[in-house]
């Protein structure tokens, strides 16, 4: 196992004296920072906060559903729980998680820049996120929110008695954070690349974020205007979505899903980017089909915009539109499949280790496979007639978002934790946590597929007794999952202060971010790097200290560079 193996080479690494974490001190130095690395940590703290809020709601939901008659919460409370679970997780955790934390930290490092193109806008986007978050938290404590995270009209605009307006305003505001982050990434990738860093030498993590940013830029404004119109409808009586005035609630769904379906790709594409880093690193082999994987990211971003009404096959949209959108839905499955095949092919002929990030990568592969394939059932018109709006859908998107995006996020956090903090996490504890998460996740969500096909609709606070067995399984799994999430939070925090010093490149990996110190200095690189190698090329990088065939064996350069 390489965790031990890589550490046997070279002298003990030293912790750098000056780095971005100790460049300045005090609360102001964090709240007014324009350093993308510090902003990433601000985001890390805030998305973790929202993750645990959302997780608390999830736990309440699962406990409540232990019995058919639901013993814990009233109907109204339950409805608030699942709504706020969705809102917290989707808008305040999943969408910013990988881009705003890992992307923010890594994109400048990966392209060899000193910072993002617009550092002040980057900080602004964090503040916007926090302001939006405050509005939404206000909604949660002042009466809650019971419309479902989809805010379907006229329930949300006319009939709901809960605090819809502050939540909608909060999400509207947070949308601009997403827009500005995407804008910053796009511009950075275009204009800030180091000499020699051509488009096809970019790590696939950057490609994935490029595609993600395209979605953020083009989709988010539409949800912004949609929610603004819904809020104005609730507050001032505008009527676009109100059937009583001749408006059309289906129009709301069109506008909502025009963003919210591509938003799924905002969540999953960055995770795919992480996996595309992990697999070559821990298989020590160039990613199979680099160009195809990069193109697949863009294809997903583009085709992902053409499939949104597959959420609306049974709203009474026209049969012709349903056919067209179902067809396009099957098309968007193909680039995802191409990625999975390429990742698998990369393993062949590799030199595979089972460090924690790689375990997450394997976990991602399995769970994303199930999540992606079950998408075919839902995109298929004939099956969607039955499983639409049942637990089948719930299981499907949790496999994508939790099994895919969160697994990718955690895998990425473990992989880059040495770079972010300069210290290693406890390897065996981390492997156990990865395993607990995998088991807990499957036990929670696999039974929901069966529930869904049996016909249990989603968002039910009570259910017929014949559905109980699977619900009990699911709740049991959720308890395991909760432990699985607490573990990494605890030991990663511990490792940030007391972990073993990692050195510049502990794995070793090939990306530009691993050529600088861990943690990196404020300006990222002491001298602007010049890139002369292709992505994931272990063979032309003697400084990594690996036994490349053709180089004299036994002469092992230290893996930890020049610190």
């Amino acid at each position: 196992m390489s965790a031990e193996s890589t550490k046997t080479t070279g002298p003990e690494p030293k912790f750098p004296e000056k780095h971005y974490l100790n460049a300045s001190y005090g609360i102001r130095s964090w709240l007014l920072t324009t350093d993308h690395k510090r902003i990433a940590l601000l985001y890390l703290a805030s998305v973790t906060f929202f993750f645990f809020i959302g997780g608390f709601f999830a736990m309440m939901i699962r406990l409540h559903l232990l019995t058919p008659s639901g013993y814990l919460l009233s109907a109204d409370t339950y409805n608030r729980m699942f709504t706020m679970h969705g809102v917290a997780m989707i808008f305040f955790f999943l969408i910013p998680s990988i881009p705003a934390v890992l992307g923010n930290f890594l994109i400048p490092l990966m392209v060899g820049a000193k910072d993002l193109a617009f550092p002040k806008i980057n900080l602004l986007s964090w503040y916007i996120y926090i302001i939006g978050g405050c509005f939404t938290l206000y909604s949660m404590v002042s009466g809650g929110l019971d419309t479902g995270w989809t805010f379907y009209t006229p329930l949300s605009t006319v009939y709901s008695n809960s605090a819809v307006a502050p939540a909608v305003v909060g999400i509207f505001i947070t949308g601009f954070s997403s827009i500005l982050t995407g804008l910053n990434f796009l511009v950075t990738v275009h204009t800030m690349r180091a000499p020699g860093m051509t488009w096809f030498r970019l790590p696939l993590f950057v490609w994935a974020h490029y595609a993600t940013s395209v979605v953020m830029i083009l989709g988010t404004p539409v949800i912004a205007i949609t929610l603004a119109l819904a809020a104005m409808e609730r507050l001032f009586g505008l009527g676009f979505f109100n059937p009583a005035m001749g408006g059309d609630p289906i129009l709301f769904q069109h506008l909502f899903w025009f963003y919210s379906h591509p938003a799924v790709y905002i969540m999953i594409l960055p995770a795919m980017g992480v996996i595309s880093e992990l697999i070559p690193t821990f298989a020590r082999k160039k990613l199979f089909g680099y160009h195809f994987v990069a193109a697949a990211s863009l294809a997903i971003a583009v085709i992902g915009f053409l499939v949104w009404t597959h959420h609306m096959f049974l709203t009474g949209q026209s049969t012709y539109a349903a056919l067209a959108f179902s067809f396009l839905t099957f098309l968007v499955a193909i680039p995802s499949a191409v990625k999975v095949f390429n990742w698998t092919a990369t393993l062949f002929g590799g030199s595979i280790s089972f460090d924690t990030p790689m375990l997450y990568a394997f976990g991602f592969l399995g769970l994303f496979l199930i999540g992606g394939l079950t998408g075919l059932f839902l995109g298929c018109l004939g099956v969607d007639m039955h499983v639409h709006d049942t637990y089948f859908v719930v299981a499907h998107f949790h496999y994508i978002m939790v099994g895919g995006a969160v697994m990718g996020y955690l895998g990425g956090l473990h992989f880059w934790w040495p770079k972010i903090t300069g210290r290693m996490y406890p390897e065996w504890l981390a492997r156990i946590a990865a395993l607990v998460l995998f088991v807990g996740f499957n036990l929670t969500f696999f039974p929901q597929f069966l529930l869904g096909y049996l016909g249990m609709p989603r968002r039910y606070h009570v259910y017929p007794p014949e559905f109980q067995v699977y619900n009990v399984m699911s709740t049991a799994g959720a308890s395991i999952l909760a432990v699985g999430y607490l573990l990494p939070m605890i030991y990663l925090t511990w490792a940030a202060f007391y972990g073993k010093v990692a050195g510049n490149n502990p794995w070793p990996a090939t990306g530009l971010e691993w050529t600088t110190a861990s943690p990196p200095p404020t300006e990222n690189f002491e001298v602007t790097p010049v890139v002369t190698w292709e992505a994931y090329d272990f063979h032309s990088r003697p400084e990594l200290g690996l036994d490349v065939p053709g180089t004299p064996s036994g002469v092992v350069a230290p893996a930890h560079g020049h610190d």
Partner: protein
Amino acid sequence: MADHEHAEHAEHIVPPTTYMIIIFTLLCLTLATAAVAYVNLGPLNIVVALAIATTKATLVVLFFMHAKYSPKRTKLVIMAGIFWLAILLFMTLSDYASRVDYRGVRYPMTQNIVLMNSQQS
């Protein structure tokens, strides 16, 4: 750094005479669109109005916003914006346009539904 080929173009300065020609054209088109609105062209009225508006917008983008002299990348960004707007508009409208029951026979069965409501209300 990257994409040097764009960065090295010298800045193109549009002379004021061009701006004057453009603003004159824009004002003429404004009056034209107001005037043509009073002519009954049937369904073509909206087409003409939008065509004139698009012409005006194109002039503004090309000259006032210097897109004509901008790097290819800027043009790509503009085209992407237009393309995605078209996706939003046309794919949504394709649903509405192909609905057999859309608004035309909006309440075909009013009496029956009203019949249903009576007992509870």
